[in-house]
């Protein structure tokens, strides 16, 4: 039982204590429930910082956890192995960072069944942590599938009118991908006589032809999660129907599980295949970038607009990752964080206004900046970071990605990056469109409507400001001084790239 004292184990499973505590709190003590959940997640965040403090950035390999035999019988070598390295540390922090924020955002938004909401939310955190920390394919698969369950309930119970449909679609869509990955995992387990990822990487030696198929099988799972064009169709539904906190986590963390999967498994496990497939991935990523940007410009529902923008942003991440050079991959990792921050902020803010107006129709808004100046300003910053304005986080990510992709040997052609760079223009188009139609121009009809219902449209209150403020801090920090973030990943990424059989 010594593994229980492992820092990463504590970090992963601590929220379960919160779940336990919540179980004993009567459902009508709503604030107590909220506080319990919030405190739990804050402690978890503290734990993640503790982990960060012990993390040795100069060490490229897995840290802070060692394998424990779990199931070792009849040719099985399944280990309980949590570990963190440059690829995952930031995502772990992001997860621990976004969860309390999302919980804070539900303070007034979720009034019914608070207890169950919080329980599912904490369970979700366990799952996400596990995904980013698991170093054994079996363990990973368990966490990977498990995250579906709480999210499914969050969408299905607290979602919008078509919530059930969206929830089921989300569940089945993701599962459809995972089952193919399951087969690939099993094949690997048999071929390598182990499920431990580091050992597999060490052994290597998978024949090229097979690598190709395994790569595809894993891709099926991750590409759906990312979501890569054209497998994005579940995303708008899930986002539109999900409650705000759900959207934040969905965009902020769950999508990253897909991109992270590529990084953690596809590239190191199947290097040849990764190099071969890089141009194709780049092609789809580029299409995704342009397509997502164009489509989101034509949306009338602001949440949908942001949802489609995610398709575009994660296209950038994919492009950078499969540039398979340091600039691209580090940019991609950073962009995962950036997208979590900026899109997370956007969803939070949209949720806050939605709470007052109960509509997401862009056209009913307008001139809000005059009525809610703080809200407008924060929204402006989030939007600018999302469209990659230099000095804010978005730029650092997109720039390094495009730079990497432009000169990538694996992709082999600057055209993908060149065309994707046009996506930066299109990003400006849809983001400014959203900002203008909601915050500039003449005052929208909704303002009167809200007044008509008694209470005038109010600016953000302290809790709401407190909710987004941390995000803003990081938006500026990463934009102006990303060094500490890059330093965390550089050694690992360096090794990762060094191991690739680049042409």
């Amino acid at each position: 039982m010594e593994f229980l004292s492992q820092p990463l184990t504590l970090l992963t499973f601590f929220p379960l204590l919160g779940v336990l505590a919540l179980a004993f709190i009567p459902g009508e003590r709503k604030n107590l429930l909220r506080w319990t959940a919030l405190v739990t997640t804050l402690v978890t965040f503290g734990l993640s910082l503790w982990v960060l403090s012990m993390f040795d950035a100069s060490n490229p390999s897995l840290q802070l956890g060692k394998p424990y035999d779990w199931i070792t019988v009849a040719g099985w070598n399944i280990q309980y192995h949590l570990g963190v390295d440059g690829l995952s540390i930031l995502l772990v922090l992001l997860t621990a960072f976004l969860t309390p924020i999302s919980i804070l955002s539900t303070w007034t938004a979720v009034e019914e069944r608070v207890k169950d909401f919080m329980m599912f939310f904490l369970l979700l955190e366990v799952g996400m942590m596990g995904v980013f920390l698991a170093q054994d394919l079996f363990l990973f698969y368990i966490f990977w599938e498990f995250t579906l369950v709480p999210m499914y309930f969050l969408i299905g119970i607290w979602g919008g009118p078509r919530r059930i449909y969206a929830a089921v679609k989300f569940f089945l869509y993701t599962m459809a991908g995972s089952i193919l990955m399951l087969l690939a995992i099993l094949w690997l387990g048999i071929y390598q006589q182990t499920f431990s990822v580091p050992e597999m990487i060490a052994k290597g030696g998978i024949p090229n032809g097979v690598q190709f198929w395994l790569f595809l099988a894993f891709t099926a799972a991750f590409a759906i999660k990312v979501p890569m064009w054209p497998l994005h169709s579940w995303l708008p539904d899930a986002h539109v129907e999900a409650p705000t906190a759900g959207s934040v986590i969905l965009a902020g963390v769950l999508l990253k599980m897909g991109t992270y999967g590529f990084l953690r498994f596809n590239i190191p496990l199947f290097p040849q295949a990764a190099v071969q497939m890089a141009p194709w991935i780049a092609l789809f990523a580029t299409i995704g970038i342009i397509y997502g940007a164009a489509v989101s410009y034509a949306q009338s529902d602001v949440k949908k607009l942001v949802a489609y923008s995610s398709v575009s942003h994660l296209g950038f991440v994919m492009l950078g990752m499969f540039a398979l050079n340091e600039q691209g991959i580090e940019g991609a990792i950073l962009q995962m964080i950036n997208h979590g921050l900026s899109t997370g902020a956007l969803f939070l803010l949209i949720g806050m206004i939605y709470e007052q107006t109960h509509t997401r129709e862009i056209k009913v808004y307008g001139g809000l900046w005059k009525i809610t100046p703080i809200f407008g300003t924060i929204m402006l910053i989030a939007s600018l970071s999302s469209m990659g304005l230099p000095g804010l986080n978005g730029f650092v990510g997109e720039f390094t990605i495009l730079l990497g992709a432009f000169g990538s040997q694996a992709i082999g052609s600057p055209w993908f990056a060149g065309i994707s760079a046009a996506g930066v223009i299109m990003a400006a188009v849809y983001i400014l469109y959203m900002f203008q139609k909601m915050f500039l121009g003449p005052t929208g009809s909704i303002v009167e409507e809200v007044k008509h219902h008694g209470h005038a449209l109010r600016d953000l209150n302290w809790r709401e400001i407190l909710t987004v403020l941390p995000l803003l801090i990081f938006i500026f920090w990463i934009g102006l001084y990303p060094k500490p973030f890059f330093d965390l990943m550089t050694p690992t990424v360096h090794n990762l790239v060094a191991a690739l059989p680049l042409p």
Partner: protein
Amino acid sequence: MSQYINPSDLTTILPAIVLTVWACALLVADLFIPHERKGWTAVLAALGLAASLGITLTQVGGTSTGFKGMVTLDGFSTFLNAMLLVSGLFGVALAYGYVRRMGLERGEYYTLLLFSVVGMMLMVQASDLIVVFIALELLSIPLYVLAALNARQIESEEAGLKYFLLGSFSTGFLVYGIALIFGATGSTSYSGIMTAASTGTSGLLLTIGAALLLVGFGFKVAVVPFHMWTPDVYQGAPTSVTAFMASGAKIAGFAALLRVFALAFPTLTADLTPIFAALAALTMIVGNLIAVSQTNIKRLLAYSSIAHAGYILMAFVPYGNPQVMPVSVAAGLFYLAAYAVTNFGAWGVVIALEKQGGKGLEVSDYAGLFWKNRPLALAMTVFMLSLIGFPPTIGMVGKFYLFRAVIDGGFIWLAIVGVVTSLISAYYYLRVVVNMFMQEGEPQTGSEFWLNFTWGLTALATVILSFVPQPLFAWASSAVLRLF
């Protein structure tokens, strides 16, 4: 004693003997138990099962044969006997309150159940086709009766008769198959058959015999296309009976199937493996496909049990391959156990919601269950996830082992069929969950101690075993290792 019977013969099948005696005694004792106290019969029956289980557990690790090699005691049999007896206990626990609620509380119920268990145990231990045949009948006939027990309901009678007619029909094939095998080899004992077969006399006759045998077992475990009785009988029979039938009969059927084909017909793999594979694939597809369109929970679970027969059968497909065999069969047994646990839990929940006259059995009757009775709904969720093969449940671990074995055996296409069909299955299992959590409704739930105990325990087991599957799996694989 005499030259015909010696103690080792008896010890080999001691649990069965004890149970038989107990059953007969119970039959008598029941006469003296007043009608309003039939609960006592249940308790006594449970005691009998417990006693037998105790003896079985003492036998763990032991191996012997009895009656001139007609029955065998080995790790395999102890493992499955234990499973069967536990199923029996669960069967009693589920029935305890249910039969009273449904007003069909009769002493025979438990006696019949015991006899059926005896039949199953013998089937597991049999190493001679004669014993197999007798055991099969011994387990079937009580089930025919139990299925038809609810005389007040036409469906119940109908179920009984259908089960009976089709059962005996399939028995016909079984017997004729045995006859052909006997003709081909001049022996009915597994070892005799194998030696004769390996010397290779009249292969075709033997093969056909084996195929007919397969039909007989396939019927019991509900493999497509011998499955059609299943939904009707499961739906018509009293739910507690269904629950017992669904796991007990499957366990016994698969056990016998495995033993026969592994020990008697290893020479026929070339001919039979494709058939196994085809049946498995067909079963998974048909079972899951039709299940999607079910609205009655009992029928839904019936089709799901058909589908799972397909999954389990998958494990036996590579049985000809000596390297893969042990792992794959172990996976099969593990999955069998996992399924049994989950299955009892699920049926327990069904019983908790069932009302007089077959009410409360529609999926829509589960609407809003979570908000009325959280533990029950959570348990049901766990079972559904486990049936899908989703973490954190034992079902997921089971599928993991199973598919690994199949891939190991080189049947990747079969594995693909498996995962795709489980994706389809997710859809109808989720419907139950959706109803429980995301629809508004006012379901009434019955609550009796033993019932709650059953679904509670199984739910816990389903979750916990998924984190510590090692012991169970180790036991299963050791059981297999002793088999050879």
